[in-house]
């Protein structure tokens, strides 16, 4: 994805991270592309925001750290994936964290994330990866919704 390209999907992106600086940097980047970034530093806050999405509209994607207030990022992702609402359970999730050991990546993948990125991060790369996972999820949902498809 080029710097001028638009992030696919609609609605804001939800960031779950304890570091306000991450929010500031991602927010500045997304705002320049016309995408709102919602921010919370806790898993409970994030789950409440996702729940509220039923009324206000669901985010197009979630970016989460591992170290959160409330619970770990892995537990948060597992809870999201177990949601009874398909729009929440199938939301694209990018894990953005300073933990980069294979063990951490494996834990993230097992919890149900779509992509894993280590901090420090490249803003261009974050946007590219986010674009890719949003597109991949959209295709998956579209094929599941087709007559021959089946929901995962």
């Amino acid at each position: 994805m080029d710097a001028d390209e638009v992030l696919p999907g609609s609605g804001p992106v939800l960031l779950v991270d304890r570091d306000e600086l991450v929010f500031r940097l991602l927010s500045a980047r997304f705002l320049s592309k016309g995408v709102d970034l919602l921010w919370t530093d806790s898993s409970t806050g994030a789950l409440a925001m996702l729940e509220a999405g039923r009324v206000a509209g669901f985010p197009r994607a979630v970016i989460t750290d591992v170290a959160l207030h409330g619970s770990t990022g892995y537990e948060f992702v597992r809870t999201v994936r177990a949601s009874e609402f398909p729009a929440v359970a199938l939301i694209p999730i990018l894990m953005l964290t300073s933990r980069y050991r294979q063990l951490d990546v494996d834990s993230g993948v097992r919890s149900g994330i779509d992509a894993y990125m280590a901090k420090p991060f490249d803003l261009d790369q974050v946007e590219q990866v986010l674009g890719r996972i949003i597109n991949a999820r959209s295709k998956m949902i579209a094929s599941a919704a087709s007559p021959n498809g089946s929901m995962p």
Partner: protein
Amino acid sequence: MRYFDALIATLIAAIANFSLIAYLVIRRILVYPSHHMLERRRREYEERIDAVAVSPHEPTGDDAAEFPTVRRWERDLLFEVVASRMVLLKGRSRSNLTRLLELSGVIDERIAELRTGTVWKRRLAADVLGRSYSATAISPLTLALRDTDADVRSIAAKALGRLDVDSAIPYVASLLKDIEEPLCAAVADTLIGFGEDAVSDVLALLQEDIDGSRSAERVRFWSVTVLANIRRPSVPERNRRVVVALHNLTGDSSMRVRRITAVALGRLGSSFEVDALAKLLVDASHEVRREAATALGVIGDERALEVLLVAFEDPVREVAIAAGDALAEFGERGVLMMRQSLARRGLPIAGSPNVTEVNHG
């Protein structure tokens, strides 16, 4: 007359005091900002710096001119805010911020301080230059590796490691020869950060030892520590040279050198290391024997079974435990050998009736 003199003296003292206080107040106002002003400026900087970081274009002189950096505290604040973002960013965003620091004069100022400042200013400058990720800092930081102050040299080495400048590796490696022990860990960390590219220069330090101009024990210890943490070099010739150097060190006079050599041999992880580790398994120091046993378990070569069984009967409990753990790595065969050893010595075996733990004598 005497009262008049006293009055004059008192007046002069009062004027001097007043002047001093006025000077300090004016200096405080001119040099240091108020808390309110500092916070206001910080907010301004944060907004503008975030915009520079996310911009698809490299900042220009005009962009830098938007940041008021006439006073020293403003330049310090600019660096502080930029550095807090650089920790999180890489790629184009980080390059933009580095360029901003270069254009605003922060880098040039610190380079000048690194060359001619006081010891404290040189230490701070080396740290700031490392965190700036600026290529213009490479040459001055490399020169700083020969600074008269050991802390400046150590901080410069760390800074060069952060900048990932391969050309600095020989200088950084040679620091192990002339800095104090407490600073060696920082230099070793930097060399480990360089990875495989540092192997040749570290081996050169050990080569001096082989040539007869015996290097200090400290140099040998930290050199092997670096090799142990870089692990197996992917270039076969380089790997062979590491193996030769480590084999030579198995007979080193220093216990901690032999111990870290055992760790390094284990991390190389090939069957070639079994003989060298078997030699360390009968070392006079139990710490060396313990590391050798652990390393042999990691390598998992069956030629090590017999020597590990001997180590399993070592009088020092922690060596016996390490050897037992290593034998367990071989599965059924290793466990059977341990059971036979315990039975032969008339010692209780875990899992037998009325026995809850293995006693290693």
